[in-house]
Structures are given as structure tokens and as C-alpha cells.
């Protein structure tokens, strides 16, 4: 160990900060609720730009063998095939083109015959780098499982938080997580970014990351509840957020650094996935500081944690009113 010199790190973050997060909790709540409602409205009005996974149809990524791809020419040629509207867009470099064929009326076999027509029309000038065909049965199933997966992920997390903490923490977590998922989805809807199976994976990961943040703050709140039995709840929540702030920001920065690297260099195929994750990390960090913890200030929380979580039901049922400090009613 003498090989490695001893040097201290750059402790950039001021300690013992007391940023008054709780003072602005009303404002933050208002903003967050507004953001959720706006996101819902956008999703309601604009809907999602579903990818092949959820909408069905075909996607072909081709690369021109001879110089840059002639998008206009391809568009004209493929739209004359009688397979409905064919979307053509360049993808990454100038030689790469993404071709989308909408879902054909009829059944599964019609998708395949449309694909065959397009593939034959492409000829030898283009190499097919990726082909995805999703039939009507599978696409509706994937839509369903995608939705269920996000809902089940949310429930699994809430159940765990409830089990480990108290229902107030679980409620705070579910509001914060719903906020994260809704706002991320809202941004995808607003800019009509392609929404496919990988975005569902990203949403699930955002859930995981955001709850991770929330749990760290909640853990500190629980610890401080044991330590400072008489501290006013709002002050205690504020202290806990401040104490964990350096960690929240550092971890956030690391995650963002890694995700920016993935976004920039990870290739075209997972670009949208990485974008969703980036958005989610930022929104998730915000939500655990500005939604989950402040919500506890409204809900109130049991003050006596000296018996540890195991002993809580008997105690809290014995004297429910005297042990709960309800700040909201004050």
C-alpha cells in the first residue's frame, strides 16, 4: 500500500449546507404537479410515435454500397410498391438509411410479403444491415407487456419501500416515480421521439435509479428521526436532504458522465434509449429531492424509531396520535 501515495481528494462540495429546500416545497409541488398534468395532456393529444415493436410493420436499415444514399430516389421508388406509406430517413452517416413500412392490413403473412417487395426493390445497391418485422399479434402483446412491466415495476418498488419504511415513504416514492415516468414519457411524446421496447427498458431503469435516490434520502431521514427526537419535522427533512446532497450530486454526475458517453459514442441503435436514460436520471434526481422528501412534510411521519422497524406495529397502534407529528395540520 506504500506504492500508492496518500493524497486527499478534492472535496468540492461545501459541507454543513442548509439550503432551505423545504421552504419552497409548495412551489416545487405546484411545478411538479403541473409538469405531470402537462405531460399527461401532451400524451393525450399527441400520443406516442410508436416504433415497430408497438405499432407493427417493418423496419429495414440499409447501407449504400456506392456512395451516399439517394433518399429522394428511394422514397419515390419504394412508395410506388403499393405497400402503403413508406417512411425513409437517413440514419447516422450519409450512406445509411432507415426504411419504415407501415403495418399492412390483413394478417401476419401480409407483413412478410410487403417486406419481400421492398427487399426486391432495393436491389444490390444497398446492403441490408438490419431487418425487423413485427406482426399485429406480437405488437399488441408487446404494447400490453410494456405497460404491465412499468406498472409492475412501480408496484414492486413501492411494496419494498413500504416494507422497509412506512407507508408515507412509500407514498412519497410512488408520487416521485410516477412523476419521473410521466414526464420522461411526456418529453418523448412532445418531440415525437420513437417509443419502442428499449424505451420501456429505459423507463424501468429510471424507476430503479430514482428509487435508489429516494431510498438514500429516506434512509437518512429515518436515521435522523432516531437521532433528533425533538427536531421539527420540516427542519429534519431539510437536514437529511442537505446531508445526502453531496452524494446525490456526485452519483448523478457519474451517471450522467457515463450516459453522455453512451449517448455520444454508443451508436445509433441505442441512441434513443440513452436519451431516455439521461432525461430520467436528471428528472429522477430532482424528484427525490423535491418531491419524495417534502411530501413527508405534508404527510407527517411517526417520530419514535428507537425500537427499530421490527417493533413498530405494536407501538404505533398503542399510541397512534401522540407519536405522529402531523405538520400539515399545524
Amino acid at each position, binding site marked *: 500500500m506504500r506504492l500508492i501515495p496518500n493524497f486527499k481528494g478534492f472535496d468540492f462540495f461545501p459541507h454543513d449546507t442548509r439550503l432551505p429546500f423545504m421552504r419552497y416545497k409548495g412551489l416545487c409541488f405546484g411545478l411538479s404537479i403541473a409538469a405531470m398534468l402537462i405531460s399527461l395532456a401532451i400524451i393525450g393529444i399527441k400520443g406516442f410515435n410508436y416504433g415497430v415493436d408497438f405499432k407493427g410493420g417493418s423496419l429495414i436499415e440499409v447501407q449504400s454500397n456506392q456512395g451516399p444514399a439517394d433518399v429522394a430516389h428511394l422514397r419515390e421508388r419504394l412508395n410506388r410498391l403499393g405497400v402503403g406509406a413508406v417512411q425513409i430517413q437517413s440514419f447516422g452517416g450519409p450512406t445509411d438509411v432507415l426504411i419504415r413500412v407501415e403495418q399492412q392490413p390483413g394478417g401476419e403473412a401480409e407483413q412478410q410479403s410487403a417486406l419481400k417487395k421492398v427487399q426486391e426493390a432495393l436491389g444490390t445497391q444497398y446492403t441490408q444491415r438490419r431487418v425487423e418485422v413485427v406482426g399485429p399479434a406480437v405488437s399488441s402483446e408487446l404494447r400490453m407487456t410494456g405497460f404491465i412491466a412499468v406498472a409492475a415495476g412501480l408496484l414492486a418498488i413501492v411494496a419494498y419501500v413500504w416494507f422497509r419504511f412506512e407507508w408515507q415513504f412509500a407514498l412519497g416514492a410512488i408520487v416521485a416515480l410516477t412523476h419521473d415516468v410521466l414526464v420522461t414519457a411526456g418529453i418523448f411524446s412532445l418531440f415525437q421521439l420513437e417509443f419502442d421496447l428499449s424505451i420501456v427498458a429505459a423507463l424501468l431503469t429510471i424507476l430503479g435509479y430514482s428509487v435508489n435516490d429516494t431510498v438514500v434520502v429516506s434512509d437518512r431521514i429515518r436515521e435522523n428521526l432516531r437521532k433528533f427526537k425533538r427536531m421539527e419535522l420540516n427542519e429534519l427533512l431539510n437536514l437529511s436532504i442537505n446531508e445526502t446532497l453531496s452524494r446525490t450530486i456526485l452519483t448523478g454526475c457519474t451517471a450522467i458522465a457515463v450516459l453522455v*458517453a453512451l449517448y455520444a459514442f454508443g451508436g445509433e441503435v441505442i441512441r434513443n434509449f440513452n436519451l431516455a436514460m439521461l432525461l430520467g436520471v436528471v428528472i429522477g434526481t430532482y424528484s427525490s429531492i423535491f418531491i419524495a422528501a417534502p411530501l413527508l412534510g405534508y404527510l407527517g411521519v411517526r417520530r419514535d424509531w428507537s425500537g427499530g422497524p421490527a417493533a413498530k406495529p405494536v407501538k404505533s397502534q398503542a399510541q397512534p396520535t401522540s407519536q405522529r407529528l402531523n405538520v400539515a395540520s399545524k
Partner: protein
Amino acid sequence: MHFTPVKQAAVIITCLIGVLLILPNFFSKETLSSWPRWVPTKQLSLGLDLRGGAHLLLAMETSEVRKDWLDTLRDDARRRLREAKIGVTGLGVANNAVQVRLAKPEDAEAAVKELRGMVQPIGNLLVGSSGSDIEIKRGEGGLITITPTEPGLQHRIANAIGAAIETVRRRVDSMGTAEAQIVREGRERILVQVPGLQDTAGLKELIGKTARLTFHEVHPTISASEARQTRVPPGYRIYEAGSREEGAQLLRETPVVRGDELVDAQPAFDSRTNEPVISFRFNNSGARKFGNFTKDHVNQPFAIVLDDQVISAPVIREPILGGSGQISGSFTVETANQLAIQLRSGALPAKLTIVEERTVGPSLGADSIESGKLAGIVGGIATIALTVLVYGTFGIFACVGLMVHGVLTVALMTLAGSSLTLPGIAGLVLGIAMAVDANVLIYERIREELRAGKSPIAGIDAGFTRAFVTIADSQLTTLACAFVMFWLGAGPIRGFAVTLTIGILTSIFASVTVVRLLIYYWLRSNRGIRRGAEVPV
């Protein structure tokens, strides 16, 4: 902060095993084959999106399974009633059931008794027999209906899927791709994954055909067009033409011989016309049936039917007793070859349709690996730089922990045989971010404890103990999320969930235990440091 020598050894050996397990990934397959046998040589397998290949999801037309079964039940019922000498005025399939109308209603009792012999219990190893596969009901005026039950149908479908998987495997293997994976997915689907395959047209042709070959007797006097104008005699059916030369034919519905009695089929050339044909050979019983039939029908035509379409209807010149023959029917060399493969590998129990297709060409896969590597390196350097900058010497320990984390994650994935996909790389990177979080939690806590005036040993110890509760909580919630993804997810989500899970599991060991051991060594060699402020964190 104490490690017994045994514990120290265990941690170090675990790390070394991890390194040993990932070593094969840095060498080519040829180099590996020359390694001694005790050295692990298993490489991390890459998913289809990284190495290139075809992924096809096939759904079975279960209505065909039902129809086939109803036809079998109808033939069986007819045979049984005829043997029991019970007269019927009508016997056919309607409303997903076989309906029998008896000539004399008073026969109903005897008929039902006879038909009960067809009922079979559905075996279930766990709960014993759980019912019968068909139900026989008596209606009014000598009407008897035989209805398949839902469990009976499910049982048939399950068997059909099993048989179809075997057939598809034989057909895919005939293409010379050894690593194809063919597995059942859900209740009535089959997933085919063929690494390295780029052009799926051939594969789709090969598995797209049922290839049910049958040899039928042609109606001796009535032609198909005559039957279309008048009526089709009972037991006969009009089969449409499959090729240009042959017209539709009126054939006896029950075939003389079926394709499942073939023992061999090979593409060949006709010795006179030189056009591509398929030469085949029957097994003993098939040869006997075919021989007897041709002996009785010399100078009459018979029809060869493929998937309910007539492909040729030659006239029998002389009895064919040897059990071999050839099929001609305007084939090209390619289609003859394909059909021969399909016939050799047996018919599919029902038609399979492609409900999902994902193909990635090798060039895109290689590009994805390259960009994944680049992003990994850039992300890794950023993480290391940030950690060392913020936590100094202890930051270096954290980075060692991160490397162990990476090594063990890849080692576990290799051991578990799970393949790395593009979303998997993202999961791996996210796992690294989570591992960093564990170290950030610990170090922030240590700083806090030291600022509160604790001695180096006490502060570090308290930091690890207190932070661990939080780490466990946050990792477990993420784990819950990963399980949901694996359980419900399809394709890309699953690959992501697997790497994320493995990453979380190894991060506890790598970021907590390994880093703790390194700090333990640091404490031993820096006994001179007495004040918390001197700890290089």
C-alpha cells in the same frame, strides 16, 4: 475493520478466479484449443444484435391442429360405426364438433357405447388424470355430437408444437448452421435463432411450408370440373392444382400412403427429360401399401399432393413394388432441393406463420461492438477520473473495486451462459454507475464521521457499517425492478435485466468487500496516521 487471513485469501482468490474466467475472451478460438484442459476456455457469447444473425418467431395455426383432429375423429367414428354395423345417414364436421346422424334413432344407445371407446383421458403427471379429451353427447332424433374439450385441444397443440420444433430443427440443421437455437415460446409459438445468418429468405422458405405429402387415388370416372358442376361424391374432395401443368383433381380424401412413411428423399434429375425431380423411398409398410395400390390401379392415374395441392398426377404404367419412385412437377434445382429437405425432415403438424422477424447483419453487429467498446472506454475513463479527483487515494481503491466489478460481471455472465446484447452493454454500464454509487455512499459517510471527530479506524468502520444499510436498500429495490423486467420483458429488455442483476450482485462484493480489504491494508501500512483529517479520502 478486521479481516482474518482466511477471509483475505477468500476475497483474493475470488478475484483471481474472475480474472481466469474472463481470460479466454482475449484470445482467438484457435489459441484456446491449444490450452491445457483444466484452464477454462468458455467465451462470453454475444447476442444476435452484436454478432449478427436471424431471429424468427413462428406461430402455429392452431385452427389447423383442431381441424386435423376433427377429421381424425370423424374417420375413427365412421370406422367404428361401420364395424358395429350401425347405419348412419350423415356424418361430418360442423361447429367444431363431429356430428353423427343415425339412420335409426333407437340405435343411439349402442352407438354412444361404441363411440365411447374413442375417449382418452388426458394424462397429467402432477394431478393425475384431469378429464377426457372429447365429450360425446346425445341429441334429439338420433343425433350424436363428439366435441373436443379445451384441455384436450391444448394437449394436442402442445404435442404439435413439440413435433414442430423437432421438424424445424431438422430443416434448419440441413442448412449447415450448427448453432441454431429452436425453443418453444409461450403456448403456441416457436422461437428460431440462427447466429450469423444474414439472408433469411431461404430459411423462411424452408420453414414456411408444412410439406405434408400424400398419395391419393383419383376418382375413376368423374373429373374435377364435372364434380364442381354437379356434386362431389362422399369421401372425395377437389384438390386444387399446385403447378402449371396439372389441373385440379377429384381425389379420394383418405390418402393411400402419407409422407411420414418415407425413409428418404433426395433431389435428382430425371434420366429422360433431365429435369429436376425428387427421388424417394418408402419404409416397408409404405412400400407394401403403395405396391398393393399400384397393382390394382394399373393404367389409372394417381395424384401426388403436397399441402393440399396436386403437384403431379401420373398414370401408373406398371405396379411399383420396390417402394421407391420419383416425383416430378416443374421443379427448379433449388425448389427440388428444398422440398427434398422438407420431406426428409418430416411434415409440420400445422402451418407456421412468421409473427416477428429481427435480423442483424454482421457489419452492423461489428459496428455496434465497436461503438459499445468506445462508449465503455470513454465512460470508464470519465468515471475513474471523477472518482480519483474527488476521493484521492481512496478513490483509487474504489476504481480497483470497479475493475473487479467489471471482471466478475463478465465472468458470471460467461459462467451462466447468458449472452451479451447491445442493451446488455447499457445495463453493464449502468451497473458500474450503481457500483460507483456504493463507494460514494461509503466515502461520503466516512468523511462525515471523520469530520465529527472520530479516529481514522473508527470513522472508516462506522462509514462502512452505516452506509451498508443504505446500499442494501437501494440495490434491493433496483433488483426488484430488474426481476420484473426479466419476468415480463421480451428480447432486449431481458438482456438488459440479466446484466443489470448480475451487476448489482457483484457490486456488493466488489465495491464493498474488496474496497474494504484494500482500506484494511492501507490502515495497516499507515499506522502513523492518527487524525481523521489526514485520511486521504
